[in-house]
């Protein structure tokens, strides 16, 4: 097992280099660089000064040399500094000799996005599991139809549209929830309880909106998994030997039906660090989606590459984790890995 893990981890390195090289090349295929976006189209900014900036950022060198420079820094786990945001560190904060701390960009955006995504994933699981089970047990009858209709509406409804309506309803018409942002004015003066409550209030709508669209996938997955399992021979056996229906459904069927879910959860790990640009813009949340989108528009290469690198490393790790978890949960897979 350990051998297998080490082998998988080792192979991640060439894979990561390959991914980063391809990403790097594709980013540089897009026309323009920071000097076309930053000083915009301001006649006060001369072409000579922009050429000077290009030299400082090594943008005048061939792409492959730029990639080499980037890789050289990455080997030392140095994500570099942003072109656009006054040289802010891309990933982690830095401290200068006078003790002034400059916060990292990903470091600031990641916890917020992670919190929203974990909360909404939890919300999805809590709602989708029972929905899927009920659907399977009442297959093709009214409750099943109603649930399927509901989750598909949730899936198909444009998130930004629903978000604006809910913001209007709960924030303007009624004074129930804050409209946008993460904290109220004066949040600094609150005690920790009021502060947490205030933050949770601000997160309610974003979590709800991002959860709603995820319901369909998981609940249908659970439903179909359950249906598969319920038609297996061992379920017939369990029923034949007179086990109570609840034990059959939750003890035998559901546990087996949940196995494929492990793969899905493993694959959703990289998704946890990605935010939705639209949701983050509407709710004015400084998360990863907005950070990435703005970086792409500004051609802020170090930030784009930083997010892509972390994202692809997490994807590979997520796959590995899913495989391991699968082996742990399913003896058949475990035996296959051992051999």
């Amino acid at each position, binding site marked *: 097992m350990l051998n297998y893990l080490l082998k998988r981890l080792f192979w991640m390195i060439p894979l990561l280099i390959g991914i980063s090289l391809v990403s790097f090349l594709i980013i540089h295929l897009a*026309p323009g660089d920071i000097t076309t976006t930053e000083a915009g189209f301001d006649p006060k*900014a001369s072409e000579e000064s922009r050429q000077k900036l290009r030299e400082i950022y090594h943008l005048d060198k061939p792409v492959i040399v730029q990639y080499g420079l980037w890789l050289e820094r990455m080997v030392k786990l140095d994500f570099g500094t942003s072109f656009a945001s006054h040289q*802010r560190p891309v990933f982690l904060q830095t401290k200068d000799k006078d003790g002034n701390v*400059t916060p990292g960009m990903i470091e600031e955006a990641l916890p917020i996005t992670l919190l929203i995504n974990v909360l909404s994933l939890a919300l999805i699981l809590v709602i989708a599991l029972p929905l899927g089970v009920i659907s399977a047990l009442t297959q093709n009858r009214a409750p099943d139809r109603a649930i399927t209709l509901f989750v598909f509406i949730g899936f198909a409804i444009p998130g930004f549209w629903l978000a604006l309506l809910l913001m209007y309803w709960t924030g303007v*018409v009624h004074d129930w929830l804050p409209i946008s942002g993460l904290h*109220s004015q004066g949040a600094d003066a609150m005690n920790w309880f009021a502060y947490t409550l205030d933050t949770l209030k601000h997160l309610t709508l974003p979590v709800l909106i991002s959860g709603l669209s995820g319901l369909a996938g998981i609940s249908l997955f659970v439903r179909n998994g359950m249906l598969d399992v319920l038609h297996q021979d061992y379920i017939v056996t369990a029923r034949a030997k007179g086990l109570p229906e609840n034990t059959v459904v939750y003890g035998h069927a559901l546990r087996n039906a949940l196995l494929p879910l492990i793969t899905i959860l493993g694959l959703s790990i990289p998704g946890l660090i990605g935010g939705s640009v639209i949701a983050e813009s509407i709710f004015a*949340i400084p998360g990863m989606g907005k950070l990435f989108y703005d970086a792409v*528009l500004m051609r802020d290469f170090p930030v784009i590459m930083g997010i892509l690198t972390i994202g692809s490393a997490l994807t590979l790790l997520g796959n590995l984790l899913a495989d391991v978890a699968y082996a742990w949960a399913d003896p058949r897979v475990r035996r296959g890995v051992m051999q």
Partner: protein
Amino acid sequence: MMHNLIKQSALFHSLLLVSALLAACSKTPSGNTVDFNAEYPPEDGGTMIDATRGEPSGLITMIAGEAAASAVAQNIFSSLLRFDKNLEFEGELAESWQVSPDQKTITFKLKPNLKWADGKPLTSADILFTWKLVTDDKTRTPYGSDYKLVIRAETPDARTFKVSYAEPYAPAINSWAGLQILPKHLLQGQDINNTPFARNPTGSHYYKLEKWRSGEQISLVRNSLSSQGPARIERLVSRFIPDEASQFLELMANNIDTMTLNPVQYARIFPARPELEQKFGLYKELGNSYTYLGFNLKHKPFDDIRVRKAINYAINKQELIDGVLLGLGEPVSSPYKPGTRWTNPDLTPYAYDPGKAKELLRQAGFKPRNGDGVLERNGKPLSFEILTNQNKQREMSAVLIQRRLKEVGIDVRIRVLEWASFIGRFIKTGDFDMVVLGWSLAIDPDQYSIWHSSQQAPGQFNFIGYNNPRVDRLLEKGRMELDPDKRMKIYHEFAQILQEESPIVYLFAGYGLPAIHKRIKGIDNPAPPAGIGHNSQDWYIPQPLRRTEISQ
């Protein structure tokens, strides 16, 4: 299949209905009403909250550059000079300034007893230090070129700063109004490119930074040592809300005091909601830019003045203003703010006259040929592409232009591009026929970098390829002339030649449309040329009208 479709459309309609119902119930004003229209005497204190779409990348504007950064930094830092309400120069840190008889040297005399917000004295050494920074090759700024023309900068004493140029350089005065002075005692020995000072600045203007919550908001508080005397409002908060619709919801919910509206919000939503008009004052100010249709003068047939004029006559500018801006803009016929001295009052926009357009095209040799409605010359149809970037107003303008040009026999396709691709792939390479873009309505009249024939290299701003020796001479003369009246004549003539030659079609200049809560008093209405915010230091919020929820 049919069944499915009906189901879908029924679903869609019920969704629409829900939204209509939601929109129909609006909040009724609760209990104790405050009369926001009443008059109150000026008093200090209170908090004003506004919303901006972007977050500043830093507050040192020579490096940050973007509008969001300038909007905040202009409340923190002072420059030597500033613009008064009519966009004429006046002293900010400088008490007076003098141009030498040979027009090559400018001497600034600072006001007495200037202080930084941390109590240290602000002297001419700080100004020299800032000049050195902006001209230093290691400083990552695209704005250094104006200041590099200074061949000698001196500080004869703590209150005098003297700069000399090799040649008289008229835009110099304007450049000293644009350079925000940075404190030497805090920045010396630091790397300006990544100094923490950019996120924790110390300035000398009305306000100083109180707290910057990354991604959320910046709050400023009054600077008691302000070089300009005290402002009235105690605290300014800028919230970063990227989405216009969300900003508007926050405004409706009374969580922000001011935002810049778009024409639909201004001309449609506000008049339909009396409860909003009760609480908010709507203002109009002249915008900072104009939108134009530019020709690639190096491509045939745009080298032919008759074709350019024909297109100018074929486009109905009023229709664009009514359709795109809902009437909230005005036509321009020179690249300067209407109402300032640089605008030539004798010029009027090309009238909408499709008959004249057709006649000019006929004179240029274009004739209908195969009956498809598109004119041809030597077998080549009048068929072009208009490029523009992702900007709703420009896209809509392009569509209206497309239709009007079709009427005179010109076939136009429209292509909308993301900004960096647009500039990198098409503008820099000169690979375009026509563009819809904008230029700022400059405060300083110098337009050398946009219109001089020497400014056509890739990445420079005369990308349309305009080349006129007379204009070149005027632009050179205008740069050397520091006397405002003589300068004015030069630029009036320049604007007149542009108007005659029609290298671009001026489309419109849209108004800035701020909505400001009526709890804020002291606002000059109508706005002078410098805009509604020109006297924001005198705005005040009377005690009874302040928000209650903020306790600090």
